[in-house]
């Protein structure tokens, strides 16, 4: 046994990767999504960078949550495909897909008195079956997920007795126990205060560092700039800008997305773009004044 690891191997599998298959490739081809007769997204093409945090941003009703629903097969596409490592997610058996792709809906609700450990154990469901129930390996993985989210001391506490940030960490721990290479999150910090938001975002970043591909919908552009490696800006069902936040976010984009003026600075500590002096567009102001 040698300690030498070739460069190729090191790239292929990062150390401490909790996921089974590293660096999945998620690609969206010609995707059209609609709710009933209402088309929300038409002919969308995307590629989500593996092992990175991708944030989908945009104004209310731009289709970002719809896109996430399409990526996680909650919504069946009217046309086009979502490919995970080349396989159409609509054709994969749902348990197979659940081993590769975890999903955390917006503000999930745990039944009263369910403990953190019990919640995290649900993450093992796709790996278990009627014949293969609870195993020592499952226990090890659940313990590791609790440890990674810093919840080991709270494992026996009811989920609904935790703080907002701890609760969200518990749900993320469940998704970690699912051992998927990709994690989709719908507004993981909605209804959380600043401290709890940072707590959750830092956990999400550490998951990407460990090799997971993260895709999250977020409301707050500032947080997206700070915590995402890759930004997808949507407007009226289309992707209007895509790339690293530092290269993507411009005052023109912010105005197009949200109808506000702003100036941009670079955060000296993190290098992330900072929005300053955000204000309503002049003509809107004039219009409301008269």
């Amino acid at each position: 046994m040698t300690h030498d690891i070739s460069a190729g191997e090191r790239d292929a599998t990062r150390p401490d990767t909790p996921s089974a298959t590293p660096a999945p490739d998620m690609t969206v081809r010609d995707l059209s999504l609609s709710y009933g007769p209402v088309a929300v997204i038409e002919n969308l093409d995307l590629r989500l960078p593996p092992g990175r945090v991708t944030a989908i941003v945009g104004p209310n009703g731009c289709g970002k949550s719809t896109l996430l629903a399409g990526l996680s097969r909650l919504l069946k596409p009217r046309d086009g495909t979502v490919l995970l490592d080349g396989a159409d997610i609509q054709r994969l058996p749902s348990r197979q897909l659940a081993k590769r792709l975890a999903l955390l809906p917006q503000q999930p609700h745990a039944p009263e008195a369910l403990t953190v450990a019990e919640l995290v154990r649900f993450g093992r469901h796709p790996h278990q079956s009627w014949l293969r129930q609870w195993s020592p390996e499952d226990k090890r993985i659940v313990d590791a997920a609790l440890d990674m989210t810093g919840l080991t001391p709270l494992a026996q506490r009811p989920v609904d007795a935790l703080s907002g940030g701890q609760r969200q960490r518990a749900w993320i721990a469940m998704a970690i126990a699912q051992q998927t290479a990709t994690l989709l999150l719908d507004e993981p910090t909605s209804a959380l205060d600043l401290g709890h938001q940072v707590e959750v975002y830092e956990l999400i970043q550490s998951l990407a560092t460990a090799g997971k591909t993260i895709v999250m919908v977020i409301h707050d552009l500032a947080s997206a700039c700070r915590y995402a490696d890759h930004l997808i800006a949507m407007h009226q069902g289309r992707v209007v800008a895509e790339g690293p936040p530092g290269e993507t976010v411009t005052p023109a984009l912010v105005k197009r997305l949200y109808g506000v003026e702003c100036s941009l600075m670079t955060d000296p500590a993190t290098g992330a773009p900072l929005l300053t002096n955000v204000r309503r567009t002049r003509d809107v102001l004039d219009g409301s004044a008269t």
Partner: protein
Amino acid sequence: MRVLTHCLSFGKPRSLIGLWLGLTGLLAAIALSSLLYGAGDIGPARAWQALQHMGTASGGEARFVLTELRMPRLWIGLVVGAALGIAGALLQAVTRNPLAEPGLLGVSAGAAFAVTLAILWGADTATLRVSVAQLGALGGCLCVLAAARLQGIGDDPIRLILAGAILSGLLHSLSSLILLYDQYTADEIRFWVVGSLAGRQLDDLVPLFPSLGIAALLTVMLARPLAALALGEHVAIGLGHHPRLVRLLVIVVVALLVGGATAAAGPIAFVGLVVPFAARALAGPDIRRTLWLCLPLGPIVVVSADIVSRLVVPPSELPLGVLTALIGAPVLIGVVRGRRLPTL
């Protein structure tokens, strides 16, 4: 009552097995008492003697009462109690409504109505009655769930119960109407329609076994997905489950269980409410634990109620369905009046 529930749920025992064994022991004691006590003049002492000499040829009146009257009653009580308890827990999990109870939602009424129709049209073999009752139960289930989909009734636990009560009332009136016109059916069914374990024979139980076996197997398979469904539809899908299929199968299981129980003992309300309520108070909200505890708790409630029904107005008997309603109504009021309905 809320205080009691609170104490019970916070003193949640580490081992479900201990709790289960304790309840099963209690059930054994209750089952023995149900053999010893009755409305007739065979007292506990004579019954006990007859029980001890069961193996020998001697017997007489006490032995006849034991083997021909009280034993079948006990067995049917055990089966009906377990079936109704499990059905209630399943229905509550699938509607995410702690008040969903087969008797209140019109499932039992559907079964009873179907059996009344079948008897009116000349059917009376036991096998046919079971499947007819199960079909009727399925119809009742689907009716009330369809009503729940209208105008978001499903979001409000109490409105769902109201929809169920209306359906039950309608079906009961229709059944009564049929009985008014047809004396033969009326005689056949009058005691059955209020729910009772009296006058049944062990043979009545045999036709239930195939469908109860299927229901048990499906319940074992559905327990895990149902537990995941309690986390929300999207989370369950994310974990690789199929919520729609699960819900459909649960409805089928509920129909099999309630239809079977109703065919054997008539419509018995509130057991499906009280039993899962107690099970949750003892073991927390996870449906898998609830189901395990419903297995001894259901028979405990039904068999004890049956004992009481024999003893309150001797030498007559109070119908079991009347007694369970007397026990269940206060529980229902307690749950509804609770400041916060327990969410499922």
